[in-house]
């Protein structure tokens, strides 16, 4: 009976109810959209980094500290004998880093040259064109960003200066054979890719690597004392932190929106008690307890949330569908240099998170609805029937 009465009252409230439902629905649509955006970005960024850079794990030379440029010159370590068969079978991809100077068009630029086996199949990096020829320049691969910075294109020849293992300068000519469209900026910005054997030859090194990329998780247990295992959790720690920071920053705006929606509910409830005093007195006279009346009003407020949830799914569907199929592109082709934003981001909707949001919103709405109506308990039936104001 309480439910029926509450429902009838909401319908009877007309435009006022519609406005309340509309406000909450707008907030819910925005919340779901934002949650989907962060979630989709995180999922896509991780997927792309796994496909292009991380695979199923990474062993990193203990001599290499990505945050210490001084360590880069000697950032390699010998590949242990136990690992070599996996390297030969292609299950582990060794990559060698070398800080270098490149001279595109007579200009001098610092770059990190990375050597990767041309025939590797573990990462999506298009390395197949890097196989060195007998004579002529060494084939090189760069990303679109690097091509823009260096003004280099396919077929261009430039000189690379790098130090060998003893510290002597070596200089070799490279020729761009491909410009890749990598979704992972760290593989592109300031980086030149060549065949591993060519880089080792230029540096007078054999069987060394800076990182070993693992095809299968089972290879994480391989013995490599001079390398440290980088787990998925460690590898994506920065990305997770960045998403969390941005999501928290964004949530301030949404807290404000939620506050305004709750204020609308609170206002409506407070006004309802003021305007419906005779009705409260009547219900009380007919035998309803104060608790039942309070529950009815609270349910009325909470039902706004239920209707808003339905409305947000119905009204928001075209929007959700559009972003799921067409994706979200940064306005004006802005490139943050962050993985996952190189192309329109197609939304994936995290159902558990969305359901949790709806439940939390329902509880919050119910609480805000109850706050003004709890005063009904103090209202005297006779005064209420008279339309008194002592409540």
């Amino acid at each position: 009976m309480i439910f029926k009465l509450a429902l009838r009252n909401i319908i009877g409230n007309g435009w006022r109810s519609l406005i309340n439902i509309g406000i909450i629905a707008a907030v819910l649509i925005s919340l779901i959209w934002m949650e989907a955006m962060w979630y989709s970005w995180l999922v896509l960024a991780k997927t792309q980094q796994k496909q292009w850079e991380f695979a199923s794990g990474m062993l990193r030379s203990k001599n290499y500290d990505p945050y210490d440029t001084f360590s880069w010159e000697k950032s390699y370590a010998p590949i242990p004998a136990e690992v070599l068969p996996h390297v030969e079978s292609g299950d582990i991809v060794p990559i060698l880093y070398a800080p270098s100077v490149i001279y595109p068009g007579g200009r001098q630029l610092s770059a990190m040259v990375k050597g990767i086996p041309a025939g590797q199949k573990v990462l999506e990096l298009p390395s197949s064109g890097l196989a060195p020829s007998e004579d002529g320049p060494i084939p090189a691969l760069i990303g679109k960003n690097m091509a823009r910075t260096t003004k280099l294109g396919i077929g261009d020849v430039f000189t690379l200066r790098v130090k060998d293992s003893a510290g002597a300068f070596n200089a070799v000519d490279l020729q761009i054979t491909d410009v890749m469209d990598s979704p992972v900026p760290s593989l592109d910005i300031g980086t030149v890719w060549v065949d591993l054997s060519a880089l080792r030859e230029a540096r007078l090194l054999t069987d060394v690597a800076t990182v070993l990329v693992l095809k299968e998780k089972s290879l994480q247990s391989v013995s490599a004392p001079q390398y440290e295992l980088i787990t998925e959790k460690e590898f994506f720690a920065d990305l997770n932190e960045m998403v969390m920071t941005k999501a928290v920053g964004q949530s301030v705006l949404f807290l404000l929106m939620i506050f305004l929606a709750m204020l609308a509910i609170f206002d409506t409830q407070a006004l309802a008690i003021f305007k419906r005093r005779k009705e409260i007195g009547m219900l009380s006279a007919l035998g309803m307890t104060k608790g039942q009346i309070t529950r009815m009003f609270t349910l009325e407020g909470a039902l706004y949330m239920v209707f808003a949830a339905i409305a947000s799914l119905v009204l928001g569907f075209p929007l959700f569908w559009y972003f799921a199929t067409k994706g979200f592109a940064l306005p004006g082709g802005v490139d943050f240099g962050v993985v996952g934003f190189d192309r329109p981001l197609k939304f994936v909707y995290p159902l558990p998170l969305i359901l949790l949001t709806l439940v939390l919103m329902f509880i919050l709405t119910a609480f805000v609805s109850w706050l003004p109506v709890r005063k009904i308990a103090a209202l005297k039936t006779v005064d209420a029937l008279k339309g008194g104001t002592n409540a």
Partner: protein
Amino acid sequence: MNKILLAILILAALPLWAADPDPASILKAVDANLTFSSSYSVTRMVINGRRSSRTVESVNYAQGEDKFFTEYTAPPRDKGTKMLKLGDKLWIYDPGTDRSVQISGNMLKQSVMGSDLSYEDFMEASKLQDDYSASLEGSASYDGRDCWVLLLTAKKTGLAYSSARIQVDKARNVILHEQLFAKSGKLLKTIRFGNVKKVGGRWYPHFVNFKDELKSGKGTEYYVDEIRFDLSIPAATFTKAMLKK
């Protein structure tokens, strides 16, 4: 008859062979010219950029091969910048931030004040005869001077340049032209010396042009306006405390 003729030809050629000095002795003589216990100099470095040139002036103090102190005096933008080299360590002091930074690792590859010289070039200071073995390639004329042409090959690891070709003024034992090569044999840098003057009993070039051959442009010119050798320099000059003074 033929044998006698051959013997005469060989004997006639002997004085020519005897005229070729030992390449190591040429290096020794070059080093002797460049070796001093200490020096003080006032220099100008003209850095030729793509669009314009700028001149950086400095006063420099050196002691042996390992200690070097420079203070930039002009232009106003660079005035007060100091550089201290102690052994294999190099510090730069920036008056703008009042901080000194040790230059090492990848930073050593960067150019000094945008010139064709890298910090690594500043770190190279040991004697040629200690680092390289020389072979005499012949004679050539450079800038109107009769020179020996020597090919230098690194005889120890850890040197930035694995080989070099130098042209040494026969009469004054001064390098007038130097080419520095990469391990692959690619020419990396050319250094031209000029305006050789006698200072304190030694011949010393007062003009040097450094040219990074992989870069376009005219290179960097280095003028020595004043130089004195073997003078007494306070030990405090070569301390980190001097950077902030």
